[in-house]
């Protein structure tokens, strides 16, 4: 098996297992509590408004927005890690049909693997530090790598089907 396929298949399996562990940990220890806090803070905002305690109401609304910001990213990380891992394994199985040289295919595989790790990592770091430039930069860099690797792979598949392709 070529090294590009090894990178994709082993990287993909490891990332899928990691994503599942993260999801299991999140479901067991974080999600229920987060959802309770999410619903509780929104309800508190409304109850405080009904009691005409408007500063408390606004504070609860701010809390709701912050928890929701984290919740969206925590769930996104789980689905993106596993989704990207599956994509890597599928490409690993079909990468011999990409009509590029071995070294180019290796760099494409490496870019996809790094992107698949870094992009969700940047997203989850955004929930650790709201508005962090480093986290956003990681997410943008990771998603850029994934998109470039995908475009290159699509081109490689197209070259294979074309006359004169591999």
């Amino acid at each position, binding site marked *: 098996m070529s090294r590009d396929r090894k990178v994709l298949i082993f990287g993909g399996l490891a990332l899928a297992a990691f994503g*599942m562990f993260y999801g299991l940990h999140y479901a067991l220890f974080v999600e229920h509590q987060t959802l309770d806090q999410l619903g509780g803070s*929104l309800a508190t*905002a*409304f109850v405080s408004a009904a009691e005409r305690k408007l500063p408390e109401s606004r504070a609860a609304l701010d809390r709701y927005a912050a928890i929701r910001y984290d919740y969206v990213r925590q769930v996104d990380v789980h*689905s993106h890690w596993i989704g990207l891992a*599956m*994509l890597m394994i599928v490409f690993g199985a079909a990468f011999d049909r990409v009509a590029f040289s071995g070294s180019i295919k290796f760099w494409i595989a490496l870019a996809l693997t790094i992107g698949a790790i870094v992009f969700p990592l940047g997203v989850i770091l955004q929930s650790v530090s709201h508005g962090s430039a480093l986290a956003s930069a990681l997410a943008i860099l990771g998603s850029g790598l994934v998109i470039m690797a995908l475009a290159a792979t*699509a081109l490689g598949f197209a070259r294979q*089907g074309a006359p004169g392709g591999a």
Partner: protein
Amino acid sequence: MATKAVSSPMIAGFPAMSAQRLLVFGGVALIAGGMIFGEIFAVFVLHQNGGKTGEALLAATKAVTAQNPEAVKQAFVSIGGLLEDRGTKVDTHVHMTDAGYLALLLALVQSSVALSAPRKRFLAKLFLLGGTLLPIGIFLIHYVGLAYSPFPVIGWASILADSAGALLIVVLTAEVWGLWRHFRGQPEAVASMSHVGTAAAGCPAERSSADPAPTWEERALLGGGTVLVLLGFLYGAWYAGKNLYEQEARERNILSFMLDAAVKTPDLSGQFVNSYGMLAAERAVQIAAHSHIIEFGLLAMLLSFVQRYVFLNAVWKRRWVVLLLLGSLILPVFVWLELKVGLVAGGIADVGGLLVVIALIGMLAGMLRYSGSVDALRGAQP
């Protein structure tokens, strides 16, 4: 539908009750089941649930106006129940189809898993058990709740779902271990491979220069699938850059205006509840378009690997491929258009989903015919 002869390498690559066959059939069945569930949810639950949530939110704002905190709490209990109902059904759909994708992925790498055939078969059965119980557990969370649970926040249905998820992790870990042994050149790997025979037909993990060239169906699904995934990622990047933060800020503002209106100008509360509902719908269709186009792209790529097990003539195989790619494009595009065009677009999106389900069932029927032919030939051999 005319058929063609089944070559002996294909028999070697798809033996009866092998892990590969279990995972292919189980995977396609899980994906088809998850998609049918998603269609039923979209038609019969999604919009009705959204309407009830809006009514409950309006009741909460009226309770704020009436300075009645108890009524607010009741409205939020109702909203919580509606959100849980919706969320668990979405998760059921997602986890059932994703378990199907993983099953197909595992089928692809089975010939490189250096474990004995009975162990691989056992792992395949465990995976399919986990993949079936996980969505069932998630579906039941809303209905079982915390009844008879020894834990304060986790009910029996959650325990079932989490246990099934843990089972999937155990199987995946064992498969990775088998792959590791294969690439380390363990003796059992060689034995396992010789048991299976030569390269499994249609399994690119074991492709060699002697394998036949990819067929039109395989190339269309692989290339089309990659383009769909690429489109999905480009759209996701655009969504994250343009809409994600704006929608989060807008949600915060709408809720703030809604509460201000409930206290000071109650007549305007309804407008803000409508705005909140529109924002929720906008967010839902944009995320659904992103996730569905990527999932269908992955599905198309996965199905390219099992085309040689689809025992139908070329015309029918192409029809199912075209139908699948067409539906894979129609569904996300018209889901995205739903807010701009209205419910007609939603109906067309549902038809797109139906096309994918029909194509999947058509391919599954072809694979069942293939395995039946293989088993008949195997039985006829001395």
